[in-house]
């Protein structure tokens, strides 16, 4: 796989950093961060039209960005039926088959409902969506979703918006090892080093929102995540050295410094 190009279904992406558009202080701050991050795939949510908050409508501003595709999410869906409805509505607007399938009925932890997600995925694949499901870091579920035709799987690193990083790293490693579709770490990342770490582990991409939107300088943080993702990917391709339980010297340990007649016994 080339460093630059990521294939999800028939879609080719030059950036392995996906960006969420929520929580930004303004539309302009969001647009600046998207540009700085180099992201080519950005998530959006659906909400009721509100005449008094017409500036919240992101369709116009996002469509002016070059080389950026929209990935509507199914946020707010409590079950498979609602998620399918949201996906259909999103596709009406995005004119793209890509959907981020997310069903997390409990607002306290926002953890995905695996059963409803699985059922919705089956139906959405039948309806020709490219389904990217947000899932718990469960290798068995990830495999089942791949088997029913999902275009990628997106295990969480930690709870949405928590900034707790790659708390599920060991499970994600198993998912990566077993997966034949791209693996995208979605949710929980706080710092570019964590994004780099995910890419070094072999993730195909990361999806970041809060870490950039809630940074003091979102645009600069978008650029930092871009660098982190690229460094991690490059490191993965370069091949990390094996680890060792004991020290392995990098300099020759010859004894030429030993003084003649010294009573030291090293």
């Amino acid at each position, binding site marked *: 796989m080339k460093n630059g190009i990521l294939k999800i279904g028939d879609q080719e992406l030059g950036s392995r950093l996906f960006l969420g558009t*929520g929580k930004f202080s303004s539309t302009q701050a969001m647009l600046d961060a998207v540009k700085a991050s180099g992201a080519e795939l950005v998530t959006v*949510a659906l909400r*009721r*039209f*509100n*005449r008094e908050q017409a500036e*919240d409508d*992101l369709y116009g501003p*996002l469509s002016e960005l070059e080389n950026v595709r929209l990935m509507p999410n199914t946020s707010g869906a409590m079950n498979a039926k609602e998620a399918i409805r949201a996906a259909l509505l999103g596709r009406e607007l*995005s004119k793209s088959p890509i959907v981020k399938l997310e069903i997390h009925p409990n607002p306290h932890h926002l953890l995905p409902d695996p059963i409803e997600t699985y059922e919705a995925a089956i139906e959405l694949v039948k309806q020709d969506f490219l389904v990217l499901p947000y899932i718990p870091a469960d290798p068995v579920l990830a495999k089942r979703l791949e088997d029913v035709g999902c275009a990628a799987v997106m295990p969480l690193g930690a709870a949405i918006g928590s900034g707790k990083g790659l708390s599920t790293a060991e499970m994600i490693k198993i998912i990566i090892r077993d997966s034949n579709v791209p693996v995208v770490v979605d949710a929980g990342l706080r710092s570019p080093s964590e994004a780099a770490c995910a890419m070094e582990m072999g993730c195909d991409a990361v999806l970041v929102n809060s870490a950039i939107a809630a940074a003091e300088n979102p645009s600069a943080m978008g650029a930092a995540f871009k660098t982190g993702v690229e460094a991690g990917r490059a490191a993965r391709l370069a091949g990390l050295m094996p680890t060792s339980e004991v020290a392995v010297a990098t300099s020759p340990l010859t004894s030429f410094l030993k003084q003649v007649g010294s009573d030291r016994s090293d």
Partner: protein
Amino acid sequence: MKLTVNGEPHEHQGNGSIDALLEELGANKAHTALMVNGEMVPSNDWDATTLKENDAVEMLVFVGGG
């Protein structure tokens, strides 16, 4: 015509077409997805759709989300 739009009662003054309702509410046609009585109405079908008394319309737009 009495409608429910995004959960609120709305007295529609136009001819009951989707276009008339969107214009009345100041919504951008190209930025809006629509459901009538819980069913999505694709924009291709808008011209052939006439709203009826007591229809429940949901108008949805893209906003920020992760």
